[in-house]
């Protein structure tokens, strides 16, 4: 019974945060709406027995990525004249909703035809860090190594992008 209430509250805050991100004009408010949404999704992960993913979501998304976004928003010193004028925003939101509703109905109909299962929180090591680590280093080792190469490329790429301007100035 308790988990029903928690689920309803978390899903309400996840959707409300997303809607707030969508409608606010200032990117700072949008970032705060996204932060609320991400924290609520982390709570939903915890309800689904994914304790390790709950921590990863909190540390990587709410910790690292949101801090990066907020840091850059403050670093750029965005004023009101830098923001784009969006006169047709709500009409376009309505158009997008009209596009997405049939798609959602198809997916939800497919999912609701599946046999129902008990989604309660269970007492087991499912989703803990130890079984996930075993799985990650045995069955998924190639993807793991590829991800490490991808992160290295991203590191090199961001350094190159950040340095390019200085090089151009020296050439000119």
């Amino acid at each position: 019974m308790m988990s029903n209430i928690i689920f309803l509250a978390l899903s309400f805050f996840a959707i409300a945060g997303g809607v707030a991100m969508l409608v606010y004009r200032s990117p700072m408010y949008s970032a705060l709406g996204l932060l609320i949404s991400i924290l609520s999704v982390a709570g939903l992960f915890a309800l689904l027995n994914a304790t390790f993913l709950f921590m990863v979501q909190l540390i990587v998304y709410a910790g690292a990525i949101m801090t990066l976004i907020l840091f850059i928003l403050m670093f750029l010193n965005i004023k009101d004249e830098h923001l784009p004028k969006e006169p047709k925003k709500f009409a376009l939101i309505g158009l997008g909703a009209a596009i997405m509703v049939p798609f959602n109905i198809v997916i939800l109909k497919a999912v609701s035809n599946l046999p129902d299962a008990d989604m309660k929180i269970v007492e087991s090591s499912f989703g803990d860090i130890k079984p996930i680590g075993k799985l990650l280093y045995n069955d998924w080792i190639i993807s793991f190594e590829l991800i490490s190469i991808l992160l290295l490329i991203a590191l090199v790429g961001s350094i190159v992008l950040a340095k390019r301007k200085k090089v151009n100035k020296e050439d000119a």
Partner: protein
Amino acid sequence: MISLTSYAFVSMILFSIGVIGVIARRNIFVIYMSIELMLNGINLFLITFARYHFNMDPQIITVMVISIAAAEAAIFLSVIILLFRSKKSLDTDIFTTLTQGERS
């Protein structure tokens, strides 16, 4: 009782909000955050099915998706800084011309 469909509903709503944000908004920061919200919705879908089948492989895929999102964040935000420095705007319509002609 919380069923599979209710989790799927929440994750599809989050994904749809992300798609609508990419379609409707012109602020490049909001477009980036919409992409993050789409990734979150897909992660929630994967975790829901991991619990449903009691199988941990989707959780590994979610770890991969989160690390790709972190790499994407680094690249995307440095590109945003470069574009903002050269154009002094966050409007995506200005970024359709990528020449550096009118730079101050």
